């Protein structure tokens, strides 16, 4: 062991963790090539790091169910927090742990998210009655999709990847855009089931928001976009060429309507819609 070994001790750690600049990397590599003691130490450290990484991944794997359940509980608590004026949830949002304990039971699992989203939306009672059930389902699906690992089945920002992925799974071919306007980028797609129909769901990241664009077949006539607001969730729906589209997000209504406009225009070049907020 030389003074150089001692001096390089922390650099060796940083080298292992990929935290060194180019020059320091060269110094460390030269030393490792020349010093068998440090090379042995480094090999052991690297083996330890690899095994710990594997053990960490294995631990995360075993906790998937707990994390999903916790996610549902937290969403419920946050919704309660966000709508204090709604009596049915105010009771839960009062301080203390009393409201946490009943939620610890396993049957209060993932389904809770959908249940409370529906309860919450229903309390708004803003949608026309005929659409309420479908809106509930869409909002529930959107909320569910935001749970860890639920958003995307095929992860890609390229419509050339996402579109063929749908091809073998649906009996229709949804239009897929890589980008919608300046702000929204495709992050992937998944299959969903809405109103008893197979549905393509495409997820877009728009700044800090996620937009789910649902597409399914319809035998109804084309229809202009219709925008609903459900206490923060926006749903814009329209029908175009035997396909029904639903865009769901926590974006502002004008922003989501712009999103819908761009998708519509892309499907029907130049055929402008009169949305509430013009582009």
């Amino acid at each position: 062991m030389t003074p150089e070994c001692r001096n390089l001790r922390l650099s060796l750690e940083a080298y292992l963790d990929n935290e060194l600049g180019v020059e320091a990397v060269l110094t460390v590599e030269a030393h490792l090539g020349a010093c068998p003691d440090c090379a042995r130490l480094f090999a052991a450290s690297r083996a330890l790091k690899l095994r710990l990484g594997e053990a960490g991944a294995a631990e995360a794997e075993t906790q998937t169910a707990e994390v999903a359940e916790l996610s549902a509980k937290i969403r419920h608590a946050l919704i309660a927090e966000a709508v204090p004026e709604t009596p049915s949830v105010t009771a839960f949002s009062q301080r203390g742990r009393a409201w946490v304990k009943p939620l610890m039971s396993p049957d209060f699992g993932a389904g809770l998210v959908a249940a409370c989203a529906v309860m919450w939306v229903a309390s708004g009672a803003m949608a026309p009655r005929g659409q309420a059930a479908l809106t509930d389902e869409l909002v529930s699906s959107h909320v569910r999709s935001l749970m860890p690992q639920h958003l995307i089945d095929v992860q890609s920002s390229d419509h050339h990847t996402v579109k063929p992925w749908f091809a073998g799974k649906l009996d229709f071919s949804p239009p897929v855009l890589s980008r919608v306007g300046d702000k929204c980028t495709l992050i992937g797609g998944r299959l969903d089931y809405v109103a008893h129909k197979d549905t393509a769901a495409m997820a877009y990241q728009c700044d800090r928001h996620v937009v789910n664009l649902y597409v399914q077949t319809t035998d109804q006539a084309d229809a202009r976009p219709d925008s609903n607001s459900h206490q923060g969730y926006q749903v814009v729906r329209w029908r175009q060429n035997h396909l029904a589209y639903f865009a769901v997000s926590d974006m502002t209504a004008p922003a989501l309507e712009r999103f819908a406009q761009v998708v519509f225009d892309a499907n029907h070049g130049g055929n402008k819609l009169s949305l509430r907020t013009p582009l």
Partner: protein
Amino acid sequence: MTKDPPRSAPWPTDGFDALILPHLGAAYRLALWVVRDDAPAQDIVQDSYLKAYRAWGRFQPGNAKAWILTIVRRQALNWLRRERLYDLVDIDDLPARTDDEALRQDQVQDTVMITAQSDASLHAAIDRLAPALREVILLKEFEALSYREIAEVLEIPMGTVMSRLSRAREALKRLLMEAGHHDT
């Protein structure tokens, strides 16, 4: 986009769900490793997310994972203090080791032995680390945080992150070697 949501704003607002919720697994593991008990760990994570949500309007676009883990760790340490289980010795105040060289000579440098460790024995060894060493290992090796992010979460300088990490790895190797000897 960075507006403070009005108090009565519905949830989820302004990306909290997209940016913060994906780190729930990391938050839960961190809380669990700090308090070592599932029910309080879940409470801590839930309280932390509520706190984070209330503070969301003040979140500066930056590292969301480090931000939420910082909150979770503070909540977990508060819980330990309340429960009088707080035993996090500030090891950086301890005198520096003088047997550094000896330590290096007789420590485990057996790559094969380390590779052969089961997950259970690795967990057992991590469990025996001092809390301050345990959390730095967890954040680095399980959550793959950068030194800068770890410094942010633990609220310590980067240099301290590096020296703690080095000590934690040395200690882990020693613990694994001891365990290996007991087994044989």
